[in-house]
């Protein structure tokens, strides 16, 4: 990660009528890093990405891409930015090869160069055999690959990928993650929006957690996990819909407690030593434990700890 700013987001707010999609967001993304925007659907990730790509304009504040303002120098920003959308953008009668050939020419390739790069990228993504099918004949995963192919063809300085592996099968996900890391090796700065915590941990170097349009946390994965005090999470599935207040008060002595959808989470130190006492406490109060787990915090735990919501639940 270099110290050069690829993207500077300054007091960025975006409203649609009375609804505030993003509220006073401030972020720096450095050249050459793979940066993740993590949050459930509707958290403001896509709005932020579309504004960086100059498709939206900020209601207030500004975003700079390699020093170019998205409000005043949108064309300069678009020349160095490529985006793969969450929903693949094509008409149902489009064919992948024709679409990508047109895209290649628009982003600056001449005829022969375009044919070469389109074939290379389609082969890399396993799309070549689908090149002459209609878009409506392609699976969701294959459509996502066509969307990613646009960015790979363009080779932009800044690649924006909005949920690049949603609807993609597990094997293909790993291949796509390797390709995304390949982009970084070629010097491209990558921003990924995702609500898949595993994807975020696997690919991203730094992550911003966004919830209800606001930045809740920013840092490397280990920095984010360190935000959970103690470092352990005891997760207990119980058969009760509610926990009595006195139990919650007793559990608070061990660490921070959350209870949602019959899952009790206690964030604490040395969980393996305290879990027996916790289970005893529950049993004495006639609360049946159906599942128990002591684990290192995941990004989902971090997200839950910071927002009280769940990536899995809302994503």
């Amino acid at each position, binding site marked *: 990660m270099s110290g050069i700013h690829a993207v500077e987001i300054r007091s960025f707010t975006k409203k649609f009528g009375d609804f505030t999609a993003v509220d006073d967001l401030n972020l720096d993304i450095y050249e050459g890093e793979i940066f993740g925007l993590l949050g459930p659907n509707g958290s403001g990730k896509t709005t932020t990405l579309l504004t960086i790509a100059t*498709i939206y304009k900020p209601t207030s504040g500004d975003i700079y891409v390699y020093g170019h303002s998205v409000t005043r120098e*949108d*064309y300069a920003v*678009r020349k160095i930015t490529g985006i793969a959308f969450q929903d693949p953008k094509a*008409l149902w009668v489009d064919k992948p090869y024709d679409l990508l050939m047109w895209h290649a020419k*628009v982003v*600056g390739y001449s005829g022969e160069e375009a044919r070469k790069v389109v074939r290379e990228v389609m082969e890399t993504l396993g799309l070549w055999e689908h090149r002459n099918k209609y878009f409506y004949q392609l699976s969701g995963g294959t459509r996502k690959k066509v969307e990613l192919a646009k960015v790979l063809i363009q080779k932009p300085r800044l690649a924006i990928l909005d949920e690049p592996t949603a609807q993609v099968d597990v094997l293909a996900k790993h291949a796509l993650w390797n390709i995304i890391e390949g982009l970084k090796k070629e010097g491209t700065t990558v921003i990924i929006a995702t609500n898949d915590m595993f994807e975020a941990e696997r690919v991203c170097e730094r992550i911003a957690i966004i919830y209800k349009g606001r930045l809740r946390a920013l840092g490397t994965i280990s920095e984010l996990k360190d935000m959970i005090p103690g470092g352990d999470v005891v997760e207990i599935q119980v058969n009760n819909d509610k926990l009595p207040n006195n139990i919650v008060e007793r559990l608070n002595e061990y660490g921070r407690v959350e209870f949602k959808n019959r899952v009790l989470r206690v964030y604490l130190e040395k969980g393996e030593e305290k879990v027996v006492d916790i289970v005893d406490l529950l049993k004495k109060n006639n609360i049946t434990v159906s599942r128990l787990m002591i684990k290192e915090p995941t990004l989902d735990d971090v997200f839950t700890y910071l927002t009280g919501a769940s990536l899995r639940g809302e994503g």
Partner: protein
Amino acid sequence: MFFLSDLRDLIHIIEWDLERLKTQKVFVAMRLSWFVIQVFIFARAISLIVRQLTGINYYEFYLLGVYVSILYSTSISRGYVIADEFDDGIVEYHLSLPIKRNIFVLGRILGCSLAALLFTLPMMLIVLIAVNALNLTGLLVSMIMAYIFSIGVVGLVILVVVNVKSTDATDILFGTIDAILVRLSSIFYPLPIIQAIGIAPYYYAALFNPLTSIADFIRLLFIPEFTLYTVSPYALVLYILGFSIGMIVLAMEHYTKKLEAGGWK
């Protein structure tokens, strides 16, 4: 400033619209069927009736009107593709491309209208053969003017689409506009006849309707002996040019203003 790269971008955008035409086989088949029925059944039938009632040869007048009518409706539907692209989200993809916004809109206007012109070219040839008026100079001049007219119509469509921002509302609006513009023009009724009816608003609406201008201009080119004209060809050309330039400017300005802020949502 206009650069060589802008010209290249413009060509690519035009290419987008020409490619789209190739994928719309049903559209092509439907319009062609409508045209063939108009030329070979209705044109003959209505000309027969008019000749028997008035002694006027209406066949040539009507056929060239049919051509303008299909040029107009094809231009509307080509421009309307942009509204469909809003629904499909393609507009977001287009707005993300490394192309200046003004160049993009200009490219769409030129591309959609060129697609409309190319689509209607065989119909123009059929009409000219049918009225026995095929000549290269006339064909070239009429095609240039038809293209300029079509540019204005596509500009009008873009203007409406980006302001209405709803395909349902746009459908209804264009149904109304289509009904008004085609009927209040000299596409099927000569201006002096409309004037003779004595309803001033009807006459003046038809007189200042760009469909009247293009229809009468094309008729002047191919059937100059026809006497039912009231406006000079120079005025017709100027009016069509003014209409198209005005629509280009308005469409470019509104597209940039309305859509850059995510305004189609």
